[in-house]
């Protein structure tokens, strides 16, 4: 590339980035959302769940127990579970689970749930009438089930003892000896890599594609719609320089978004690691370098492909209606890739578009550098990225891109 050509490509990329970043909504979409997404998901979301659970625990619930004679220790346990209950006689029903006339009492919230329990010689029959769409009713059902489970345990132990058998050996004849985690030869770093490999490639692929949509459209179909392309095409720059400049701008914007998202993810992982939820993955320098190379190749392909599709479109609306559904081309392979077993995987998987990079990321996050696989995904990715770039250059060379709907 000559000096003049380099300067023009740089001028195009710089102008595109400056213009794009002058829209505050873009800054939010590119910087704030990627940065906050994972911390919100991994830190704030569990905190919210905990506070919701605590709120539910504090609820005072009222239930009705319909029985022909409730066991004494069950009544005690019910009293201790934070539920007020009234006892009624069992209605005459074929099965206890038929709501019968009680349907309106639960639906109308006059009671949170109804426990029906009857003795049948050595076996007790029970049913809980509740409404699954009500949080109070669900909570009441959950607490009743806990109480019943505890009562059932004590009943089992009592009956085993009455039969003259040892409770522990009867209920637990097979036991793990020692610490369960001690039997796993994988290091905590490898385990973390395994967990992260289940979702990081997916998130990276989807985010790379989706964060490139808006700038790709703005810089191609947007220019076409606004009528700015004709003036640009009359400048002394080649269509290839134009494509390169725009590609550089979109890739930079997308790269910033993805990097910030990874930063947010690492922050969240660091937070979770401090609470022993997940460890930090152990990656070699080679793995880290190959991860960067694979993401770059993927970005080259995706951005070129999106620029080409957007350039074909006459308007922002048309480009949006093509690029948004095209996300499926990334989403389905990405989801499918999560199901592929990496142990003994055949080499051809690493030559399939999109799947190859996602599998590579999965392997590398587990610190597995298999030369044969690396060669296949690197060569195939270079081929796909080149094909995407060639397709994009063909679109940029079309004469009709100068015409706009306006």
């Amino acid at each position, binding site marked *: 590339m000559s000096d*003049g050509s380099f300067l023009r490509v740089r001028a195009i990329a710089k102008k595109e980035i400056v213009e794009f970043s002058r829209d505050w909504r873009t800054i939010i979409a590119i910087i704030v959302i990627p940065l906050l997404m994972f911390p919100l998901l991994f830190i704030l979301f569990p905190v919210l769940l905990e506070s919701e659970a605590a709120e539910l625990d504090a609820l005072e619930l009222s239930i009705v127990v319909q029985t022909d004679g409730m066991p004494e220790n069950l009544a005690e346990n019910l009293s201790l579970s934070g539920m007020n209950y009234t006892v009624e006689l069992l209605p005459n029903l074929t099965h206890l689970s038929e709501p019968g006339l009680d349907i309106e009492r639960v639906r109308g919230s006059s009671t949170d749930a109804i426990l029906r329990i009857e003795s049948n010689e050595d076996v007790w029959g029970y049913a809980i009438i509740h409404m699954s769409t009500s949080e109070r009713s669900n909570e009441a059902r959950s607490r009743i089930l806990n109480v019943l489970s505890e009562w059932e345990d004590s009943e089992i132990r009592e009956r085993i003892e009455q039969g003259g058998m040892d409770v522990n050996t009867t209920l637990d004849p097979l036991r793990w000896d020692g610490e369960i985690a001690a039997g796993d030869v994988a290091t905590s770093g490898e385990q973390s890599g395994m967990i992260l490999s289940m979702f990081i490639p997916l998130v990276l692929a989807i985010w790379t594609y989706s964060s490139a949509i808006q700038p790709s459209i703005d810089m191609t179909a947007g220019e076409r719609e606004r009528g700015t392309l*004709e*003036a640009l095409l*009359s400048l002394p720059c080649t269509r290839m320089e134009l494509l390169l400049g725009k590609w550089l701008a979109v890739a930079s914007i997308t790269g910033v978004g993805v990097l910030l998202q990874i930063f947010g993810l690492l922050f969240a992982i660091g937070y979770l690691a401090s609470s022993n939820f997940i460890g930090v993955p152990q990656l070699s320098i080679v793995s880290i370098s190959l991860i960067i190379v694979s993401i770059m190749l993927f970005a080259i392909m995706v951005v070129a492909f999106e620029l080409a599709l957007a350039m074909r479109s006459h308007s922002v609306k048309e480009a949006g209606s093509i690029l948004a559904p095209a996300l499926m081309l990334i989403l389905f392979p990405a989801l499918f890739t999560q199901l592929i077993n990496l142990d003994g995987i055949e080499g051809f998987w690493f030559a399939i578009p999109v799947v190859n990079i996602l599998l590579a990321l999965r392997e590398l996050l587990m610190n597995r550098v298999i030369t044969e696989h690396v060669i296949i995904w690197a060569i195939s990715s270079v081929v796909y990225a080149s094909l995407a770039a060639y397709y994009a250059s063909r679109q940029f060379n079309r004469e*009709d891109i100068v015409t706009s709907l306006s």
Partner: protein
Amino acid sequence: MPKSLLSIQEVSKNFDEIEALHEINLEIYSGEIVGLVGSNGAGKTTLLRLMAGVYKPSKGSVNLSNGESVTTMRHELGVVPESTGLYSRLTAWENIRYHSRMHGIPDKVSWARTEKFAELLDMKESLSRHTKGFSRGMRQKTALLRALAHGPNILLLDEPTAGLDITSARTVRAMVRQLRDEGGTVVYSTHQLAEAQQVCDRIVIMHNGEIRADGSPAKLLSDTDTESLEEAYVSLTLDQARTRQEDNDKESAFSGWWRRLSTPRTPATTREVMEDE
């Protein structure tokens, strides 16, 4: 004899089956204002785009005086398209600087030229403003400044006064004449005969992709034996004008079928209109 700056020889331009321009021969000489006059669809914009190197001719050549194709010598040209093509999130000066940098002109050189012409167009105070809020006239003036900032030999203007108020149109026309007086060369497309007569040294009448006449206003009158340019124009363009060719974008068979299917039939009678209501 003035020097030829741009030579268009035997140029035809096809868009698929449609011939937008047919065997055009035209020489643009140094220091003249050439008006391309014609109705919508005559081929003015297509010809300007060929001159600007945006389109490639299907047949023939568009070369500069040194024999080089315009596509390799675009810095010789300053182009103002009909849409002006300004970026709304950039200031007027940033728009101008962007194009100048693409021409390889240092910022201080383009600033000096911009400042000089901005004074003439009363745009100096607006150079630091974002073009988003600009009126049509201000946009046109900014596009003109942008086209002049790198010091082109030929200025190509596509309908530069379309949609402008009277004052802005006068300013633009005065600017064009001043450029000519300073030795510049301008190709000026318009569908207003009166404007062409007022501004241009030479008028090229285009119709259905062909050049029907080329000469000074006086020559056109004598050649057509008419008393006004309007009469001359009418006598030269008696056959029915076609619609704009570039707008006939390619549409896939499925897109066409779906568009027709989802478009209700236009009512033919008042009764049908009332029934639709």
